[in-house]
């Protein structure tokens, strides 16, 4: 038993901490929040140069083939920001889906470019009937000469506004099974529109008779894609662990500094209780996440742990922010202060890769409460 980070992970943690402190100060994050168009020009080059775009990709495809725990350690630090951008979508989620589902030729064509940061992938899965279980997908591709034309409307797509390539879930030639289709985000007929509001990094993607080549189709991909999504779920969870940590630190500092009624508010038991709830959510998120990562990295059956981790961390991040707002009161909702960056992110990521409700539903099967 050893719950500490190994030497490699320490190095990853240190360099990620430096990056978040240096390049992603509060002013920068606030600027990127106001103007998401600056995210790529500000963050992508340094992230690629640090090799982060290739960490989750095997060496044979141009990456460094790090363990999922290694990758998670990086994402925990990015979550502290919270640092926005498509690193998870492209270099972890889509890379893993391609690895699990695509042909050799597709892997060779796409993965090295993802690893080098030259291409940025995003997964366009969800539609009006919003869910992450592959139901209700209406997007379709029809045969057109040697290739296909793809049409449909995707909504609440994470990171599409930063992407050069979209992996679009669609039904091809009327097949019941879901396929994935790679689409150039600049291709004619593709319209990506960022969604405004209390939301971070989500877009609508309209596909109107977009021409795609046959070798851009990963046919009948849903099974492997679902496996890939579950395997990288704890990496996303680790991002939320870091976020919870940052929200806790911020609230602790505030409770120790803010004076009311002639004393620091941290002396009031009611305020202490908020922080205790917060640290309990943080640690629940942390240990369920890293147990799942350990199981994945050691080749064990990790399904139940992945479902538990996602269910716990999505709730934890949202609740952590709620408690932080109880501690901070007025200053907490001032955008300049920075807490609302997390609050918004905690809501925006709650459903990503499936909301807690979906993962709890899946646990029913894993625990043998229902057949199948």
């Amino acid at each position, binding site marked *: 038993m050893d719950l500490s980070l190994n030497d490699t992970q320490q190095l990853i943690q240190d360099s990620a901490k430096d990056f978040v402190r240096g390049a992603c100060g509060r002013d920068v994050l606030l600027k990127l929040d106001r103007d998401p168009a600056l995210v790529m020009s500000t963050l992508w080059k340094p992230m690629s140069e640090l090799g982060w775009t290739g960490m989750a990709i095997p060496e044979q495809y141009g990456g460094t083939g790090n363990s999922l725990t290694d990758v998670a350690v990086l994402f925990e630090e990015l979550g502290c920001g919270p640092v926005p951008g498509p690193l998870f979508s492209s270099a972890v989620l889509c890379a893993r889906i391609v690895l699990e589902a695509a042909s050799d030729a597709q892997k060779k064509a796409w993965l090295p470019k993802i690893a080098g940061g030259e291409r940025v992938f995003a997964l366009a899965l969800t539609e009006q009937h919003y869910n992450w279980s592959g139901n209700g997908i209406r997007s379709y591709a029809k045969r057109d000469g040697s290739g296909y034309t793809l049409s449909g409307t995707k909504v609440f797509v994470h990171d599409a506004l930063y992407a050069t390539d979209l992996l679009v879930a669609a039904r091809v030639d009327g097949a019941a099974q879901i396929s994935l289709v790679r689409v150039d985000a600049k291709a004619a007929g593709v319209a990506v529109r960022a969604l405004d509001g209390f939301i971070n990094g989500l877009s609508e993607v309209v596909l109107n008779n977009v021409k795609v080549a046959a070798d851009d189709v990963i046919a009948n991909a849903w099974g492997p894609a679902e496996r890939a999504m579950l395997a990288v779920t704890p990496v996303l969870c680790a991002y939320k662990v870091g976020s919870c940590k940052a929200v806790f630190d911020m609230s602790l500092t505030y409770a*120790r500094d803010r004076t009311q009624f002639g004393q620091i508010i941290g002396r009031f038991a009611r305020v202490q209780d908020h922080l205790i709830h917060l640290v309990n959510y943080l640690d629940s998120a942390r240990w369920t996440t890293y147990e799942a990562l350990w199981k994945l990295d050691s080749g064990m059956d990790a399904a139940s742990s992945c479902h538990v981790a996602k269910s716990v961390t999505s709730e934890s991040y949202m609740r952590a922010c709620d408690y932080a707002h109880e501690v901070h009161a007025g200053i907490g909702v001032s955008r300049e202060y920075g807490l609302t960056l997390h609050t918004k992110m905690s809501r925006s990521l709650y459903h990503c890769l499936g909301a807690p409700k979906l993962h709890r539903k899946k*646990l029913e099967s894993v625990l043998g409460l*229902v057949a199948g």
Partner: protein
Amino acid sequence: MNFAIEDSAEQGTFRKEARAFIEEIVPSTLEHMADPVDMSYEQYQIRRDIGRALGERGWLYPSMPKEYGGGDLSAENVAILHDEMTRIGLALPPYYDAGGRMGAPTILVWGTDEHKKRFLPPICKGLVRTWQLLSEPGAGSDLAGIKTTAIRDGNHYVVNGQKMYVGSSHGADQSWTIVVTDPKGERHKNLSWLMIPMDLPGITVTPMDLLATGGEGGSGCGVKNAVFFDNVRVPADNLVGGENNGWKVATTHLEVEHGGMGRLADRRAITDFINVCKEKHDGWAIADDPDAREEIVNLYIESEITKLFALRNHWLSHTNQPRSYEGSQYSLRRKLSGLDIGEKMVRIAGPLVLTKDKRWAPVNGAIEYFQRDSITALHPGATTDIQRVIMARRLGIGGREKEKAANLR
């Protein structure tokens, strides 16, 4: 990271050795009861025999130093021993004993060489059973407000007072306690830590009628008692850590009691309950109801988090790492999630979890016992509110300085 308790060939060999030895020393006459109150004197003695056999090998308190009868075992091997005992429905120690679990680490930190040589080997070898006596009628959460006095008289302390909610069924050989040695002294500076032989004249033990005891399964204590001291003369050299220094001494065993070590034995009733929900009777299972399934999954997630906190604390304490709020956090979590899980069971399965009737009760009444035990568990080792207070101090929420956790080794 590695969350596995058994992770090397060497440890696999140790598990085999441990399992073989435990099988050898556990007689076929051992019986398990859902409620430790139902444990007969004969069954208690069987557990003491098992304890002595383990003690002879240094395996009763395996993380204690060898020179005092412990095993000096690694965190992994200690966990394996716990695991192997749990597998056959026992715990380590296999009976209630506050001597090794909390008394011994305290003596190790605060005792003189003479104390260590005199007190530790009988405890570690399972030759004596020890109670801890802390609460009093007027001192629960406010432990420093105790009234029991121990006044120096020549080579003795004369003890007068009353302790409550203490001990177990079937008596003890000795008890350690916190007593007032300076009735006029300043609060926290008037207390001492004293080991009292229980066969001294003037000690009366009266069982209390409680809902349950709130201890962990497997080593449950049966009953709790009121203990009365009437001019009990205790040898002065049984005082550990110095006169009027008892509050500092107490921080060590309170650290253990507040969950600093992490209990690896999970609450078996939870797994049992999930299995009960899957059982088909007349073609129908509780889990066939979708609402029930949703609650069962929530209950499972709750118990997984508690298990992971215990594992983390076990790793922190057995690898001697700095700890702060984690002991109290685990204790708070175990208490509250136990209560929550108990309630969920009632919602899911109704009166089935409330009966210990021989015909109807699942798993011989173990779940009915869990119902009572999880409510009782809210107070032993400090209430949920006290755990929150300790967490707040350790996290430094209310002040500039973060309070440090007490030393365990």
